[in-house]
């Protein structure tokens, strides 16, 4: 009794240590293995970083007096690091391609419109019909700006389009137009109609079983043979069609996964309300299915964006091809590293932003379920 009543000091832990040293002791040197890992990676990171900074900053050439072979010789001297003067000279060529120099504000505005469209789409308050209207208007504006011929804009041939607008257009139009096709194919694969099911199955498995480059070859060398005499389709449009066909096969498999995981009771409820097939699918099933598979769709979008670079193999002037050609002339030969790092950074910014957005979307969708 007295034991219980006697006041005893509650056992207390020592106050948690704070500050950078405590953090380092816990996260960097928590155990013998962790210490070895930390020191080893510090050595690797340090040497790689030192070597890279020396090349890219300390010994780099930032400007050159001109762009002739004699001028660029300064970059070829031994002991000289990166030649960033290349980017200063060629950034407009890499970003905008062969578009007429005095008209290059037009593709530049197109890039800005694309960026605005992407940013606006992340706002969930706009996820309704308004967003569709904004997209149609935006894409129409891009089309008019690039082509010209109306509103007093000088017409510019598709052969002169190049650089970032082409990459963004191939990716954006590719995904936007693949979407309806993918939904139809996904519905077709779940149809009760055996013929429809079979045709959709063949399409999806055939496209997913072959590399994108073979579909692009099909578009560039086979497709013209399919068309009757007198009808021609430009190379860029053919590549765009190939990308849509390719993307739709992958998208449809993801969407089918979503369709299958929609709660069966939702479908039964729609049936009980007397909805027809298209009302049921369009208003009840597809919206829920798309919501379920939004995160994997974002990762597919990243993959398609990177894959648009394959069009350079069939001779289309996209961002990567522009980088390759920027170092083709004798004055700039041998500076591929700089050109490729520049476009790699652009691809990285787009893909990394998209993947971060996908992760935040996943978290928010999980939270609201």
């Amino acid at each position, binding site marked *: 009794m007295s034991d219980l009543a006697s006041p005893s000091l509650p056992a207390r832990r020592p106050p948690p240590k704070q500050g950078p040293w405590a953090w380092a002791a816990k996260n960097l040197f928590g155990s013998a293995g962790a210490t070895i890992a930390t020191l080893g990676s510090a050595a*690797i990171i340090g040497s790689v970083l030192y070597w890279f900074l020396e090349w890219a900053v300390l010994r780099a050439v930032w400007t050159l007096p001109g762009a002739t072979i004699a001028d660029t010789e300064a970059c070829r001297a031994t002991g000289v690091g990166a030649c960033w003067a290349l980017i200063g000279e060629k950034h407009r060529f890499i970003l905008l391609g062969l578009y007429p120099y005095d008209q290059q504000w037009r593709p530049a505005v197109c890039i800005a419109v694309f960026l605005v469209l992407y940013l606006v789409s992340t706002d969930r308050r706009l996820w309704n019909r308004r967003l569709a209207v904004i997209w149609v208007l935006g894409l129409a504006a891009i089309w008019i700006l690039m082509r010209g011929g109306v509103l007093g804009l000088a017409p510019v041939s598709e052969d002169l389009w190049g650089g970032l607008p082409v990459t963004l257009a191939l990716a954006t139009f590719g995904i936007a137009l693949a979407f309806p096709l993918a939904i139809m194919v996904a519905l077709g694969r779940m149809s009760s109609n055996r013929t429809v099911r079979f*045709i959709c199955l063949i399409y999806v498995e055939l496209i997913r079983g072959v590399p994108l480059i*073979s579909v692009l070859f099909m578009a560039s060398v086979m497709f013209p043979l399919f068309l009757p005499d007198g009808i021609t389709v430009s190379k860029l449009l053919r590549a765009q069609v190939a990308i849509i066909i390719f993307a739709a096969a992958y998208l449809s498999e993801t969407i089918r996964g979503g369709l299958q995981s929609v709660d069966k009771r939702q479908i039964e409820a729609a049936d009980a309300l007397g909805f027809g097939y298209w009302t049921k699918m369009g208003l009840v099933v597809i919206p829920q299915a798309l919501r379920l598979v939004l995160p994997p769709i974002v990762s597919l979008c990243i993959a398609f964006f990177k894959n648009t670079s394959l069009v350079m193999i069939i001779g289309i002037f996209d961002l*990567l091809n522009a980088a390759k050609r920027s170092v083709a002339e004798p004055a700039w030969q041998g500076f591929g590293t700089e050109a490729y790092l520049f476009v790699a950074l652009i691809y990285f910014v787009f893909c990394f932003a998209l993947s971060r957005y996908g992760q935040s979307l996943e978290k928010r969708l999980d939270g609201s379920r």
Partner: protein
Amino acid sequence: MSGRSGERRRSDWRSRLAQAFILLSVGALIWFLVDTTVANLQARGISTGFGFLWRVTSLPIPNTWLAYTAGVSTYGRAIAIGFLNTITVSVVVIVLATVLGTIIGVARLSSSWLMSRAAGAYVEAMRNVPVLLHLLFWYQLLLKLPGPRRAFNPVTGVFISNRGVRYPSLEMDTALVWTLLALVAGAVLAGFLARANRLHGERTGQGRRVWPLVLLAIMVPPLAAWQLTNASLTIVLPEFVGFDIRGGSAMTPELAALVIGLTTYASAFVAEIVRAGIQGVPRGQREAAGALGLRKTPTLRLVVLPQALRIIVPPMTSEYLGIIKNSSLAVAVGYPDLVAVVNSMMSDTGQAIEGVAIIMLAFLAISLAVSLFMNWYNAHVALTAR
């Protein structure tokens, strides 16, 4: 009753009609395409069919598995060589990317903050850049290396220059085939021994020490065969001859760029798959193994890895298929894989339909084979209810 069955009959009839209509329209579309294509081909004077496979080609193809001479060999042979090259590159890249990706995936889970962040940075930097950019980057970098006269010589017998990588080769006697056959036979025997021992262990609960026997089964037959046939095996080191390096085996800059670029790209995805697999094993499993008194290594080998493999195998299958399909980008750096050879063939002969069909069929066949193998392996590692 009758009204309902009548309705079903009607919907049945309607669905048949719909199927017939779809079949007819698809058939009409195909007929239209074939018709215009045949007309177009005739107008351009291109012959159809696969007869060109037996025609002689002048495509230059270096480094081949099969004997090949430009101007003497046929298109069929050139395409077969391209197919073998595709498979070679795919296998090499799958092995390298799996090893590198596993190391990075495990490093990503390191308890050291610095190491896990470094591995994370590698993954993000590699996977957010197009694979084609990886290839072009490494290709131009390899071409910028100094020429053969000033080649890097990191290890004796290895020379790295802008002509590619030269490394020691093994000169084999044909009699060595017997040694290899004996090695295979020994390995099969060892496999049977290990399996018999495992079954015995499961039946009786008694383990036997079997590894010395297994080692003997692997070692003795090939050594005996080697002694009996007296086969010779010599290592040929590359060396300077005049201005060039001769001897040994060579890897062209094209192949090196393809292998390095595909590996750096794919390893980032493999790392994420491995990380997700290991993280997917519930913590409780590891703790339960600890509570049963298992040490760290058996816990990893017997508890964590088998469960992680179950998570890893399906996404790894699609990653391997992706590597095989990405190997078709060899055409961008000029390595003669299937797609590159067929591409040159198409521009030589104009037989685009046959060319695209060959590419598609070859990749479909490879994809199918890999899927079947990985499904078998997946069933092998999957949870077996006993």
